[in-house]
């Protein structure tokens, strides 16, 4: 197909516009589902066209004329390597599920809701497909707008505050990224014309720029991406936004939007900062922040009363692993980190879906009011436990592979070392503690009727188990969780090449083994 990636972006965008004009109550959701499935179909076409034997190459390049600004160096260039491809696949996989999960729970202003969802899909796909740093930034910022409205209109009780906090936090941080992006684009260009092409940017960073400039650009990028991820001290927007967002919003937020941050770090910040002077100097500090995020997120999750908030805090903890693996700067760690992005998207997205289904029935997420759901809803309980195990990282399910690889990466990395690995492993244990703690209380034990939910007026019993639609939503996720747990190589193999291209050359690593490591916590290899 000519310009597959253009279609990939065009379909959700056109779908959003058309969907906003549809009449009727039912039409918008069917339309949205159709559009999201069509987008998924285009991704399948892209997968067929993509040559996985050369997965490190940027493929399917397109660059339409009308959307370039040559004088400003802005080129509308799309292209994917396998890292981009798998994240796009994650997006188009989760989107129809999120839309199907909103089927009944979004009852008001459906037309707008589905239009925003499709626009969000457009922006997220754009982020992963962009081969131009400024274009990436454009899409990166654009995701804020639909999410602002999705949280603010269809969210929980504190939705307005949550939406504003989400937007302002991430926007305030990413303006620094914008400054960094424009600066590096200017240095990468020739003469008066800047260039934002990823290749030029990375070339310029690794050959032309002074250490000091790279240091600042790295920090500028880190500012925007770290808030998006979120790393430890700047994570405070996340629990609120996740808790207040509607179910589908939380799924997309946790499943894909957080990955924009890790993707940005991996694609831009790390290549720009590669080398002993910048990343070498900052890795110990960043690694410690990741570790604090892992442990702190886990401990805070443990004491949550609201199960959705618990999962939200677990994201803080999980994303700590993800970034830690990336900072290891070795093949294992980065591959694990990318796997982590995908797996976290699947299992946390799934957790939010299940919790949304519980909430639809009981109108509470209070851990003290829910108990013994296994008796009432065995099918839901099955999925709940499955996704809990996946989230914990039980061997045989997807979470295990990525957790194992990131920690292995941290252990063997010359930048991090055993100390980091040990603390991170402690985080896994804590993860099991809080997740099982929650699962045990909510799913098992005596059946409890939530307060204020004394049946309906006719006194008939509690709400029933999940129905066919909900099973249809959860089954693909369950399948993905198991498949990626059993044969992770489907993805891992294709990641080898692009990751190898990302890792800084041998000489730089050797130099780091000097004083930079001694000052860190790790003991080196």
């Amino acid at each position: 197909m000519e310009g597959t990636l253009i279609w990939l972006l065009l379909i959700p965008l056109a779908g959003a516009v058309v969907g906003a004009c549809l009449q009727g109550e039912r039409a918008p959701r069917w339309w949205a589902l159709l559009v999201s499935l069509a987008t998924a179909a285009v991704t399948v076409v892209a997968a067929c066209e993509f040559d996985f034997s050369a997965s490190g190459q940027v493929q399917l390049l397109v660059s339409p004329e009308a959307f370039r600004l040559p004088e400003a160096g802005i080129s509308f260039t799309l292209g994917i390597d396998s890292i981009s491809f798998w994240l796009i696949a994650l997006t188009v996989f989760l989107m129809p599920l999120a839309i199907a999960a909103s089927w009944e729970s979004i009852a008001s202003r459906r037309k707008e809701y589905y239009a925003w969802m499709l626009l969000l899909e457009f922006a997220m796909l754009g982020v992963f497909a962009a081969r131009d740093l400024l274009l990436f930034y454009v899409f990166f910022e654009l995701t804020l707008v639909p999410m602002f409205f999705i949280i603010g209109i269809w969210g929980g009780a504190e939705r307005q505050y949550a939406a504003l906090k989400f937007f302002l936090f991430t926007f305030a941080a990413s303006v620094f990224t914008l400054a960094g992006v424009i600066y590096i684009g200017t240095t990468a260009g020739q003469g008066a014309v800047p260039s934002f092409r990823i290749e030029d940017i990375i070339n310029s960073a690794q050959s032309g720029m002074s250490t000091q400039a790279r240091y600042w650009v790295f920090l500028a990028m880190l500012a925007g991406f770290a808030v998006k991820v979120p790393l430890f001290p700047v994570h405070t927007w996340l629990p609120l936004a996740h808790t207040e967002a509607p179910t589908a919003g939380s799924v997309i937020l946790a499943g894909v939007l957080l990955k924009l941050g890790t993707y940005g770090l991996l694609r831009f910040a790390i290549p720009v900062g590669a080398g002993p002077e910048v990343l070498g100097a900052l890795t110990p500090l960043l690694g410690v922040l990741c570790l604090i995020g892992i442990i702190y997120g886990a401990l805070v999750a443990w004491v949550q009363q609201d199960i959705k908030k618990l999962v939200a805090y677990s994201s803080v903890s999980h994303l700590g692993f993800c970034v830690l693996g990336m900072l290891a700067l070795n093949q294992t760690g980065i591959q694990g980190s990318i796997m982590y992005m995908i797996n976290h998207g699947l299992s946390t997205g799934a957790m939010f879906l299940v919790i949304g289904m519980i909430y639809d029935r009981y109108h509470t997420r209070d851990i003290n009011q829910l108990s013994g759901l296994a008796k009432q809803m065995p099918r839901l309980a099955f999925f709940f436990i499955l996704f809990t195990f996946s989230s914990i990282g039980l061997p045989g399910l997807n979470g295990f592979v990525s957790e194992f690889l990131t920690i292995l990466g941290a252990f063997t990395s010359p930048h991090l070392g055993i100390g980091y690995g040990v603390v991170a492993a402690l985080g896994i244990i804590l993860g099991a503690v809080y997740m099982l703690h929650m699962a045990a209380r909510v799913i098992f034990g005596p059946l409890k009727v939530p307060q204020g939910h004394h049946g309906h007026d006719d006194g008939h019993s509690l709400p029933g188990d999940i129905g066919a639609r909900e099973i249809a939503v959860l089954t693909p996720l369950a399948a993905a969780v198991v498949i990626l747990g059993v044969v992770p190589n489907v993805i891992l193999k294709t990641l080898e090449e692009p990751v190898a291209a990302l890792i800084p050359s041998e000489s730089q690593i050797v130099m780091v083994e000097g004083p930079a490591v001694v000052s860190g916590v790790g003991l080196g290899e």
Partner: protein
Amino acid sequence: MNFLIALAPEVVLTGVACLLFVMAALPGAGIRRAAPWVTLLALLAAGLMVGCRMTGWAEPEGVRETVLLSGFAGYIKVISLVVGVLLLLVNWPTNRDGSGNPTLSLSSEGPEYFGLMLLSITGLLLVASANDMILLFLAIELASIPTYVMVSISRPISVAQEAAVKYFFLGAFSAALTLFGLSFLFGTTGSVTLTGVANVIGGWESMPGWLILGGMMLLAGLAFKLAAFPLHFYAPDVYTGAATPLTAFLSYVPKAAGMVALIRVLYALAGGMPGELPQVFVTTLWLVAVLTMTVGNVLGLMQQNVKRLMACSSIAHSGYMLTGVVVLFGAASIVDRAGGLAGVLFYLTAYGLTNVGIFAVLMMLPAKPDPFVYDGKVPPATTAETFSDLAGTGRTHVGLGLVMAACCFSLIGIPLTVGFLGKFYLLRPALAGEFYWLALITVVNAAISAGYYLRILATMFLKEPRAAAGGVEAAAEPVTANLRTRPLLISAIIAAGLGVLLGTYLDAASALRTLTLNSLDVAPRAVDSSSEGELVASLSE
């Protein structure tokens, strides 16, 4: 004769303004209803003339001493006329007797109001090309003095009169400062034209102290027009007091006049070579830019009244534009300097377009008068001003909500709007020219401004509509009518449409950018065509 040809657009506008004053003396609603059409025709005719001029009329001989017909002036004239048409549409009198519209209460002074509007726009056009310093001063005042009168006749209530008086006295004060500054320029250089001043200063090794003093006075006087720190404090009061359509006018025409005059005067002070402006001016401009945007945005966060908020936003946007001026005069490389100027020119257009949209939306929404401003009475010519007026209106008026969203996102600088490109073009030369702190403070300010623009959007889209929230009681309170007039709708659609089109269809943005790059010849020195000219050629290849 040559003089008249050179200033043909201004002559037409002034002539029509006089015609409108005569019309005002005649009785009859028909005359009053014809006034805006006459105004529109005058603006279009002037636009046509400027357009012809830009596509290559030869410059008449012998007028260079008084007026300069540079590409820079042409650009300013074009965008002034385009935005002028939008502003006219916003001010369009739709009452049957031509006495204004529900948001603008002109009684029988309609034709005069539009005559004054034309005069003010003429002033802006003249500022762009006046070379004689006396003409420049008169042009600046021509852009301002009509606005004082317009504020007082726009609404028959004491708030507007108070605003007019405040505006007038402070304006007179700033005019005195400007004039005093210009007299120093004349006194030290002995020349009365900007080119003459530039030539004299260009021949000097260093600048005498008197000239620096004069330059500082000029800066202060023009800062008032720009609503720049420290002469920004009148803006919220005046903007709130004036009728809303006039507020839209105030936040553009005098500001643009001030910005253009500032750039041209500084060029003269730099001896025609922007890189040679004394450091003390660059430092001052830097401080003014940073303080203007920061003060504007921080004040914006605290406002409860949207018109006051937009006044603060207008202050902040002056600050953003001043960063371009700093780069123009402070950067080491000629490319970055040109980039700074081009950035200012682009931003003037971006701001002018999207700013109108917000006021148009405010005018179209139903409103309950702000008790703090109007003592609980329902005065004529009131529009939506408070946040409670806006509550839920994004749901009840979807189209208006979308226009507001597009304009607010553009003013924040979110991608896919022209505002993002505007910020981009300002930041790029700033970063390339090593003004790192300036760029950093600018982006931080963009983040701060998101706080209050988003509050507008959050109120419109996320809050319950007032009638629904307050029940019967709230619905029974006095509310102004929901104003849907064709001119207003057209202006809102143009504003938001162009704002989004320029941000997405980059070919269009590229055309505008090329236009700005072709308009960098602020003050061609009489002596040589110099490197600045070559630069223009190199950038716009």
